[in-house]
């Protein structure tokens, strides 16, 4: 080995060490930054109202059980019921949205029909319209149809999910060769059966990603549900959370507010961690080869 080469390698090693130090420092800082909010939320759930009101603390308080009892004990705040409702809405939306958007994506991807391209462009266009634009009209429409205190307006409209559609479409472009469908046809599989038995399993990773996104979005949704649901047995968690925040002064308790936030986040964190392998891999699914 020549002298210059040795120098270069040594120099390379020291820069590599330096780069590692920088990389790990930045990663650790970002990790702290990302987990920080979770930490504070959970800490605040253990603190009393006045402590939270007066500001911030890194140390847990002693009000964990008190907050939990208070949140759970009110008859107008059926928290467990709220969780169940949120779960129904979020799961229902996730299931319908993913299934039908995948079906739509498949319809446009696999079949060459008249208006195929126009349909695709139309969906791309509506993807960019902010949801607020049609919110008021939607609410009054649902009211006119007598769909107050019903999960239908919270779940069924998610069948038309442009973002999910777009993701699935992109994914199919690179990961669902049409030959496979052709082969299924030769084997005598019906079109609908092909979709259910072959396409769905093949797109499972992408479906998992979109399912969790839709689940989280609907789990956290306040705006539309708050305007349509007022029956206490149908309220979702975000509505209950807002209800806690508009409590009268005798009952207003930030400790309870944070406890409910913590209770609402916990299931999502658990679901997320369980699915994280899919998600981390899945977002990249539509990934291009340079």
């Amino acid at each position, binding site marked *: 080995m020549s002298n210059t080469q040795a120098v270069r390698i040594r120099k390379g090693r020291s820069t590599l060490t330096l780069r590692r130090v920088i990389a790990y420092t930045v990663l650790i800082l970002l990790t702290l930054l990302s987990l920080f909010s979770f930490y504070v939320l959970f800490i605040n759930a253990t603190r009393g109202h006045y402590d939270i*009101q007066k500001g911030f603390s890194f140390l847990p308080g002693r009000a964990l059980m008190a907050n939990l009892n208070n949140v759970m004990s009110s008859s107008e705040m059926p928290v467990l019921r709220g969780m169940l409702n949120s779960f129904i809405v979020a799961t229902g939306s996730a299931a319908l949205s993913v299934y039908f958007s995948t079906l739509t994506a498949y319809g446009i991807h696999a079949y060459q029909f008249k208006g195929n391209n126009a349909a695709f462009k139309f969906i791309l266009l509506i993807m960019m319209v902010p949801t607020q634009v049609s919110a008021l009209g939607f609410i009054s429409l649902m009211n006119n149809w007598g769909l107050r205190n019903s999960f239908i307006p919270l779940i069924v409209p998610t069948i038309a999910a442009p973002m999910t559609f777009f993701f699935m479409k992109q994914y199919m472009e690179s990961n669902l060769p049409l030959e496979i469908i052709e082969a299924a046809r030769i084997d005598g599989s019906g079109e609908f059966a092909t979709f259910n038995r072959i396409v769905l399993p093949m797109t499972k990773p992408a479906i998992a990603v979109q399912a969790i996104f839709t689940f989280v979005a609907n789990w956290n949704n306040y705006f539309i549900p708050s305007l349509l649901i007022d029956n206490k047995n149908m309220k979702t968690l975000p509505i209950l959370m807002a209800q806690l925040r*508009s409590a009268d002064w005798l009952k207003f308790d930030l400790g309870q507010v944070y406890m409910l936030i913590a209770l609402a986040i916990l299931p999502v964190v658990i679901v997320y961690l369980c699915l994280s392998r899919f998600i981390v891999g899945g977002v990249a699914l539509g990934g291009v080869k340079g």
Partner: protein
Amino acid sequence: MKKALAVLMALAMASSLLAGCGASASSASTAAPASSTASSQAAPAEGKVLRVYCWNEEFKSRVEAYYPDYNKDTQMIGDTKVEWVITPNENNAYQNALDEALLKQSTAADDQKVDLFLIEADYALKYTSADAGVAMSVQDVGLTDADMADQFQYTRDVVTGEDGVQRGISWQGCPGVMLYRRDIAKDVFGTDDPAEIQKLVSDWDKFDAAAEKLSAKGYKMLPGFDDTYRVFSNNVSAPWVTDNKINVDPAITQWVEQTKEYTDKGYNEKGNLWSSEWSKGATDKAFCYFGPAWFIDYCLAGYTMETSEADGGKAELGNGTYGEWAACAGPQGYFWGGTWMCAAEGSDNTALIADMMKTMCCNADTATKLAKDVNEFANNKTAMKALAEDTSFGSNFLGGQNVYGAMYDSAEKIVMDKCTAYDQGLNESFQTAYHDYFNGTVDKDTAYANFIKTAQEKYPELKG
């Protein structure tokens, strides 16, 4: 590509016109507010369902405690089922839901009709004006002037429409007082006696002079920007809006000038209401807060404790500034908060509602209990007068002082005949717009322009 878009847009426009026609026709039919004659046509028999619209559980817990006929477990009063429809305030969801229900009142099935709904002072007129036609006159519900003779006049004014008809009633009064630190008072003024301190702050000029003295010793007169806002805004000489024109009253202007001066000279802690700077003032350098009974017991007392009760602290002298406080009437009378009950036009439960209103709002025993159980300043002159004179009814937090006397005087002084349906939005927009001015981000004219802009977004019919 371009063509496809153009066709799409054209299609969208065309169908929007078609769709629009349908929509306007259908909304026109629902747009008419519930007919004001609905009440006279109500079925003579009482309905089996009492639907109550509210934004939190306060009223429900009051009914549980002070309306003996209510069965907490079955949620029944006699054979009438009480349905609590609770929609949170956040994002205006409560008023949206209530409006939606009231607009459908005339066509709704009897059991789906709103029977009773709750409102707050700042937007009361939106529902209690004759024009709105959604709240029944309390006389029609079955209350007489004799029933309400013991109520504080301002609580009746708030829910009285332009036609002089009262359309709501409240069980509580929320007259505010000025709460100050005894230790700071002794240090700066040499006395902590409420009567003496009251002399030092009995009008705004004296109040300003006191602020200067406090500042010289390193204290702050006020914890934030908004503390005196309600005191000024409850004492305006003209309503916010006349003939759709927004009018900034001299009293409100005075608040702007005072607060700007205090901010620039460091007489306040620059806190927004409910911010942590603001509440921390109670254990720091802030001399006084303004608030009614609920504020003292459920907010301020908690802020003053160094170790909170949740963390094992005790509500006693020596824990922060707890017990170091006292109350006096302050420069002007005012109130803060309060909930009013309204019987909805079209309700088929008026007899029951009348009984609830009488029992909860017009009964001296209920009033005394409210004060003793939850420290409420109840809407009953006789009962509150008796408590004010009861020497045993002192507050530990206020060093043994009985604050009901000061509150009683304040409640008697409040004049609320300048209400408009716009108060909530305008008060909010005004304070927000001028915070920028206090913080030095914008000049006075810009703050005013921003206020008008926000006001018109909320109420398109108003002019600056």
